[in-house]
């Protein structure tokens, strides 16, 4: 058992180290397609200038084997842990931290993590409660899925929460998303993915919004009512004319993803979390024997 556990520690750390760098260098195909499609329909001169530069940048990153964006972000991981996976989440966390640190030192990547009051750097993209890891537990399974979402600060700074009241209804939700994205302007590097979390509680709505931005472009919420809200918001946001990098144009967002939870009868929370056009994500599946498969979306 001990040997297996040691190997698994290494397998998870290796997976994290690989995922962090992979995510930063190679943006997902669904994003590339969405950006190309955006360039196809953008009619403003400044918008075209921005989109053509973005497309060129994605190719240059590939050719030069360089990072797409210099902001290596704050490392965020989503873990789905099978109930029979032979490594305890406490050890999984330690391995993810080790992998993040190793990737940062070996590549090397810019270290962004600082103490939130002193602003002093706390190490190679690790610190107290960093990386940030979200957990899900899966019954009757012995595997582990890890998704790495390095989150840049330009887009993360454009996060908004409003505790709408029930009487605000769906209209209130739509208005808040619209005013948030117009107010954000060019700061979160549009056109990107707008993540919206509705329902639950204040903290859970923001958690859902973050989960929403990590979904591939082209996926829809399974609840048809929520999927309709995604479509409505997508159309409305692209009417605002904010455009690529906030310089004006037809394409303000590439996609709108809404995640929801049931809530209290007197609550109507709405959270917005923005993901920039370089919407980075990468996943791995680690089997109980330590063998690892890398996939964009595990």
């Amino acid at each position, binding site marked *: 058992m001990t040997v297996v556990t040691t190997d698994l520690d290494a397998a998870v750390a290796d997976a994290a180290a690989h995922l962090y760098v992979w995510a930063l260098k190679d943006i997902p195909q669904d994003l590339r397609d969405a950006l190309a499609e955006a360039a196809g329909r953008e009619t403003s001169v400044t918008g075209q*200038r921005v989109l053509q*530069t973005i497309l060129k940048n994605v190719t240059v990153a590939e050719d*030069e084997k360089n990072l*797409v964006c210099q902001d290596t972000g704050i490392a965020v991981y989503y873990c789905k842990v099978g109930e029979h996976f032979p490594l305890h989440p406490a050890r999984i966390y330690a391995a993810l931290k080790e992998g993040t640190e190793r990737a940062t030192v070996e590549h090397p990547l810019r270290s962004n993590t600082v103490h939130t009051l002193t*602003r002093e750097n706390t190490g190679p993209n690790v610190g107290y409660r960093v990386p940030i890891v979200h957990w899900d537990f899966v019954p009757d399974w012995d595997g582990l899925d890890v998704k790495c979402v390095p989150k840049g600060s330009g887009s993360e700074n454009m996060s908004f929460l409003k505790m709408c009241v029930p009487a605000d209804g769906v209209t209130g939700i739509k208005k808040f998303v619209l005013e948030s994205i117009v107010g954000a302007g060019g700061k979160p590097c549009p056109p990107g993915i707008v993540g919206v979390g509705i329902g639950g509680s204040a903290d859970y709505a923001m958690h859902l919004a973050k989960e929403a931005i990590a979904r591939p472009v082209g996926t829809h919420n399974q609840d048809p009512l929520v999927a309709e809200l995604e479509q409505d918001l997508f159309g409305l946001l692209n009417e605002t004319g904010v455009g690529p990098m*906030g310089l004006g144009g037809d394409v303000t967002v590439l996609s709108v993803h809404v995640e929801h939870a049931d809530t209290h009868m007197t609550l109507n929370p709405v959270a917005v979390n923005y993901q920039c056009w370089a919407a980075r994500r990468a996943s791995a599946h680690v089997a109980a024997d330590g063998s690892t498969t890398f996939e964009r979306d595990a």
Partner: protein
Amino acid sequence: MAAHQVTFPVTDPAEILKLRAGDEVIVQGHIIGIRDRTQIRIFDQGIEPPMDLSGAFLLHTAPNVRKVGPGQYEKLCIGTTTSARMVRFTEGLGSQYGVRAICGKGGFPDEAIEPMHRLGMVYFAIVGGAAALETTQIEEIEEVAWEELMPECLWKFRVKDFGPLTVGIDAHGDSLYREVQNRAKQKLEEIYARL
């Protein structure tokens, strides 16, 4: 919308005055990397920057670099950060140090329009996140000051064909950001009316 080539640092104010909001600009010469902590040190702590900023082009950046010798760094990945956080330094950069251009991503809020108009400065919009491309346009890191602020030091880069940039705010009191925001807010009123 015109397209221009400008070499920095500039000595002739006309080089800045010819630029209009929305124009495309490609930059040659030398540019200076600067960020939050660098400007906090200059303005809030009152420490003189050890680099000449007159006629300069400032880039809002905190690059990924590799140290190759004392005070010497090799570029790894150099990109641009959100400007809005640093707007309050605009007036001081222009009036005290003669800075002519500030380049970043996401735009400057309206409070930058008046000092830029008065002092003959421009704001250039770069494409945020396009760091791989930007890195290829930076030929060399020629000088680094205040290394203890790593990566928020003062950086001097030599660039070639840096851009394309868009004039976001010009020296004539026009801002593309204000224009886009005003139109978007009008549009929102229309949208709200049919929700």
